[in-house]
């Protein structure tokens, strides 16, 4: 029997503002954070959480991860004292791209002024494991720490790996999440050239007029603890990471397999890992990028994996409110999902107005809806699919009422 793993703290910095509750409250109120076709975390000010030296030694992606981890650790009640030995606490932070602002800045210095002007901090800031290193150092967490790198599924892979670390006994707790700060010209231009991003700048997952994703930035972090230990210390529990699975399409560098076989298999395996059936699923937090292909294939995959249940369960996309946070998406969406489950609601897919005849699930277009769970602990799946054909699905449970 695998030990249960509790979520005891959450933190998020997103285009909807600073704080996990801010994300939850504003999204469920139907508010979006996308302005002029980009989801910027405009309310985030790194100097509120970091010293000058810390901020200089951190790419924006690391700054976001540090701020979100501070919040999650406070939320878990760990602020004064860690409840476990430091070497029993791991740190996993995923990212899709890494410190691209630092890379671009130093490339410019190299071109304009030569190699002697390239910063000594260049590599340590741009390396994709820098956020995990910074969070581990900030809180003195000496268990395993590293970054997961799988494009838009990096955050979900991090959570799944953290679950396994606790279940396997490598750690009693893990500070886990994802971060991304890639709103720089080269990334915007590259996704644009790939025709992956929306030329109209509107994120409307599953809508017939969807024309690409909207880039966003931010970070999400959760504190996971072995559930029996969390109970023992009297922790307030928000929910559980109940299951996880990861698969690969082995099909194409950027496009999902048209049958959604890899995605469907990840959903089925994740439910099996949680010991649950399709009938147990109360809510689906979709990957829902607003690209023509993803939303069609994800719909197919949900039908394949959940059978008849797919048509009954509410499916919505956080990306309709904040855009696509790439390597942070899976973690931010897990934060949003666990808070939604705790409140027994399915938040809406914003901007959904025109149904696509092929996409015939219940996308929660009318606004936040109460979940009818009959006194049970509500269950959600959260999907993440990344360039490279990486599929990661986590199963989340909301805490008992």
């Amino acid at each position, binding site marked *: 029997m695998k030990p249960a793993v509790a979520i005891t703290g959450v933190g998020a910095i997103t285009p909807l503002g600073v704080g996990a509750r801010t994300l939850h409250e504003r999204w469920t109120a139907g508010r979006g954070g996308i302005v002029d076709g980009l989801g910027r975390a405009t309310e985030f000010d790194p100097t509120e959480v970091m010293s000058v*030296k810390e901020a*200089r030694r951190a790419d924006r992606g690391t700054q976001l991860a540090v701020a979100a981890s501070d919040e999650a650790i406070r939320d878990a009640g760990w602020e004064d004292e860690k409840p476990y030995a430091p070497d029993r606490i791991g740190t996993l932070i995923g990212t899709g791209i890494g410190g691209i602002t630092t890379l671009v800045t130093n490339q410019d210095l190299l071109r304009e002024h030569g190699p002697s*002007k390239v*910063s*000594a901090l260049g590599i340590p800031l741009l390396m994709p494991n820098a956020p995990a290193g910074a969070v581990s150092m900030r809180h003195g967490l000496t268990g395993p720490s590293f970054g997961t790198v799988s494009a838009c599924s990096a955050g979900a892979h991090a959570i799944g790996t953290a679950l396994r670390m606790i279940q396997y006994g490598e750690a009693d707790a893990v500070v886990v999440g994802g971060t991304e700060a890639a709103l720089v010209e080269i990334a915007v231009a590259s996704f644009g050239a790939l025709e992956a991003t929306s030329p109209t700048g509107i994120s409307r997952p599953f809508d017939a007029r969807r024309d690409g994703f909207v880039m966003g930035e931010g970070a999400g972090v959760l504190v996971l603890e072995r559930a029996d230990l969390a109970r023992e210390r009297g922790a307030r529990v928000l929910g559980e990471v109940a299951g996880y699975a990861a698969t690969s399409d082995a099909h194409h560098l950027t496009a999902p397999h048209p049958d959604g076989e890899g995605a469907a298999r990840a959903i089925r395996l994740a439910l099996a890992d949680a010991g649950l059936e399709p009938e147990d699923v109360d809510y689906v937090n979709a990957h829902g990028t607003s690209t023509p292909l993803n939303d069609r294939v994800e719909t197919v995959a949900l039908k394949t994996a959940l059978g008849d249940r797919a048509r009954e369960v509410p499916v919505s996309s956080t990306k309709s409110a904040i855009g696509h946070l790439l390597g942070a998406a899976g973690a931010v969406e897990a934060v949003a999902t666990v808070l939604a489950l705790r409140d027994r609601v399915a938040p809406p897919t914003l901007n959904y107005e025109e149904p696509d005849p092929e996409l015939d699930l219940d996308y929660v277009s009318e606004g936040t809806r109460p979940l009818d769970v009959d006194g049970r602990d509500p269950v959600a799946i959260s999907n993440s699919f990344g360039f490279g054909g990486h599929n990661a699905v986590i199963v989340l449970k909301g805490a008992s009422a």
Partner: protein
Amino acid sequence: MSTTVTPEQVESRVLDALVTFGADASVVSRDATWEQLEVDSLDLVELAQVVEDEYGVEITSQDMQSLPTVGSVIDLVVERAA
């Protein structure tokens, strides 16, 4: 370049750099030690880069680390730049 280097210029540049790196401006002075300023190896790598770039003086971060105060680095830079 070296003909225009004055001790005042070097002092001002080095102290400015340390503040930019995040050292407490009220503590930054010729007499301060690295410990007092909480300056570490990464700061010294950056300082070595500034000194080499602006005055053509090569001092490794390890050599800087072994000097007792900020002032002794400034003096060494002025001496070697002359």
